[in-house]
């Protein structure tokens, strides 16, 4: 008996640890979006703020990437969903000897590494472009076009799997019945098969869009000089990070959660409807008129209210009192820095006589008064803390990030004026 209790406790602990592993990183990342600190982190907590969302929205590069990602996502839906359906229907019709070969070929893109798909698409269309003597502005060298095709290669296989699962529950006699009743092949397809496939088309489209939206491995090769949200994100994350990326994560996580809740509600309604019609068939109850529309579903209303209230609360909490808090944090940091400077000055006074090696912090110290002068202007002071922190030598990592950022491709970092424009509301300044 005791060993059983022990087993139960350890299973519980394991499940808890597992879900902590699953959600911990996401929760912490989400929290960093609300910390006014320049570097995404939870501790030390500075001020609760939603300003990183502003930074995010005003990031032209990210927004351009997002636009491309949406275009590509819809392009992939348009190609992969019909192609996946055709693939699934074909599977039911090819001969028994051909079927394993056919299946292996169309399923292989799922197993082939994404980078390989990206590379092969890139090379194939490059060769095609050469063969037709097309210029670099032609469709053969269009990053968005290539990305749609490259992604559709494997996303069609996902869509096909969705359709195969649905088709397994389709009775082919229904098609024959429709034909027999005088329908043309197209009518049969439109009135019998398509309505049956509708839920699968919906799932396949959502799946295709999500898979396209988050794809990196294939896209990074096929996108050429364009950028998608993921490639922008990847280069941002590689060359220097700030909490506006966490803000994006918050948005994506919340959208996913909303999607999950809606899905759950839809599923419950479906089950309720199925149960009811079963009872009707057995003659136990009279048929109710119709289910209330989705937006009147109590669960849906509660979900929407919670979402609105939550967003509103967070927004107000993140704006009210932000300036005061920041000023306080800034003052504290400044005091700390001044202490540090004083200490150093005292030390230096002791070492006066000795030949001094060049002080790596010297330029930063010189900068400090300038920053202080600016600090009165409120939001511009964002510039200040990080400079001060760097100077105080507390934030080795942040410093490293920033140096790295400067060193590579002139990538936009926190020092970049482009990043400031969001807060400062100044005109766009391209680096």
């Amino acid at each position, binding site marked *: 008996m005791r060993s059983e209790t022990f087993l139960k406790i350890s299973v519980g602990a394991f499940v808890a640890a*597992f879900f902590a592993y699953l959600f911990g990183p*996401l929760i912490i990342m989400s929290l960093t979006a609300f910390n006014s600190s320049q570097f995404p982190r939870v501790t030390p907590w500075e001020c609760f703020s939603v300003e990183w969302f502003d930074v995010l929205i005003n990031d032209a590069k990210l927004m351009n990437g997002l636009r491309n990602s949406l275009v590509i996502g819809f392009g992939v839906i348009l190609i992969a969903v019909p192609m996946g359906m055709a693939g699934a229907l074909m599977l039911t019709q090819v001969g028994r000897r051909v079927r394993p070969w056919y299946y*292996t070929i169309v*399923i292989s893109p799922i197993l082939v*590494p994404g*980078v390989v798909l990206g590379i*092969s698409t890139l090379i194939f269309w490059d060769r095609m472009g050469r063969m037709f003597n097309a210029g670099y502005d032609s469709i053969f060298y269009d990053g968005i076009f290539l990305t749609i095709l490259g992604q559709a290669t494997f996303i069609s296989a996902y869509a096909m799997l969705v359709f195969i699962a649905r088709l397994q529950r389709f009775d082919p006699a229904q098609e024959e019945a429709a034909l027999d009743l005088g329908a043309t092949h197209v009518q049969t397809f439109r009135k019998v098969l398509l309505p049956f496939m509708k839920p699968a088309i919906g799932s396949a489209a959502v799946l295709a869009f999500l898979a396209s939206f988050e794809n990196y491995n294939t896209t*990074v090769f096929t996108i050429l000089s364009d950028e998608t949200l993921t490639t922008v994100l990847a280069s941002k994350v590689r060359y220097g990070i700030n909490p506006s990326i966490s803000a994006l994560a918050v948005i994506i996580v919340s959208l996913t*959660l909303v999607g999950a809740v809606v899905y759950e509600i839809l599923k419950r309604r479906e089950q309720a409807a199925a149960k009811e019609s079963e009872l009707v068939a057995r003659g136990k109850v009279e048929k109710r008129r119709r289910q209330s529309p989705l937006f009147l579903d109590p669960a849906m209303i509660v979900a929407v209210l919670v979402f609105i209230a939550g967003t509103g609360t967070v927004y107000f909490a993140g704006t009210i009192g932000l300036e005061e808090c920041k000023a306080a944090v800034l003052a504290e940091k400044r005091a700390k820095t001044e202490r540090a400077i004083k200490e150093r000055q005292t030390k230096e006074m002791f070492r006066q006589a000795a030949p001094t090696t060049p002080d790596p912090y010297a330029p930063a110290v010189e900068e400090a008064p300038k920053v202080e002068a600016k600090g009165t202007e409120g939001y511009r002071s964002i510039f200040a803390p990080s400079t001060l922190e760097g100077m105080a030598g507390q*934030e080795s990592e942040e410093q490293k990030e920033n140096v790295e950022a400067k060193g590579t491709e002139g990538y936009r970092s926190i020092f970049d004026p482009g990043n400031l424009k969001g807060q400062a509301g100044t005109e766009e300044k391209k680096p």
Partner: protein
Amino acid sequence: MSTWISNFYHRNGTALSIFLLLSVLFWVFILIVLPQLFMMDFSFRHNLPPADIGGAKDVYTLENYQYMIYGSAQSEGSYNTVDLTVFARTLIAAIFVTLFDLAICYPIAFYLAHSAYGGAARLMVLSLIVPFWVNEILRAFAFRIMFGATGVINNFLIWAGILDQPYDFIRNDVALYAGLGYAFILLMIFPIYNTVESLDRNQIEAARDLGSPWWRIHWRVVIPYAKPGITSGCTMVFMLTAGALAAPQILGGPSSLWFTQIIYQWFNTGNNWPQGSAYAIILLATCIAFVLIMMKVFKVKLGEIAR
């Protein structure tokens, strides 16, 4: 063949026949088969400026593959230890990540299938899916935040007095393995969950009734039954880990490379597409070999792996 076409036409009518045939032919040939063949062709060519392509110098060569093994022609005699090491390290790390995922996912899949009920089980399934739909890059980013020098984990360890200096999780690849393991959890859990779920509870009860301890029940009853799911999960996780690009780029330490990163470099900074193609072919061949081995050793069909 001709009877098949006439049957096909008879069954689908003109418009649908054309739609089906064109879609499938486009997918199979233009998107799948031809690009792979072109890539393979390309990997056997010299890296030439555009003007020379198709010219007299454009002949087949094995140099791109030789490079992988022996390095450049200048350093003749010795092996290309850098790339070979990265290749081996990638495969070993991928196996390690796969085993790690299997170890943590099997108990969860079993728990989900046989111990959780109703709403709770559904909630768990849903909460497994949610992290999976968060962008791959963002997931890696989350691990970078967690494992950074001033990240939560270091702060916690220092606060708890376990460390007195921040530990560089990124340089030591801990963040990378944790992030890779995290990224493909779902692909391990669901195939196992699907097979374990269809296992008749009575079989477990019967084994328990016969006095079998819990570990033997798993070893003798559950695991053999879940074999197709385990094989499928392991194959998918291995392939995706070995072919991962984003996580190594974001979480990899400065000194360690992933094989895909070398391919990426040949295309971007190295600007040597044929060389990159050859490396891509090597990766592809490795993955095909892995799938074939898994199919052979565990006696599962391809359809059971890719679901």
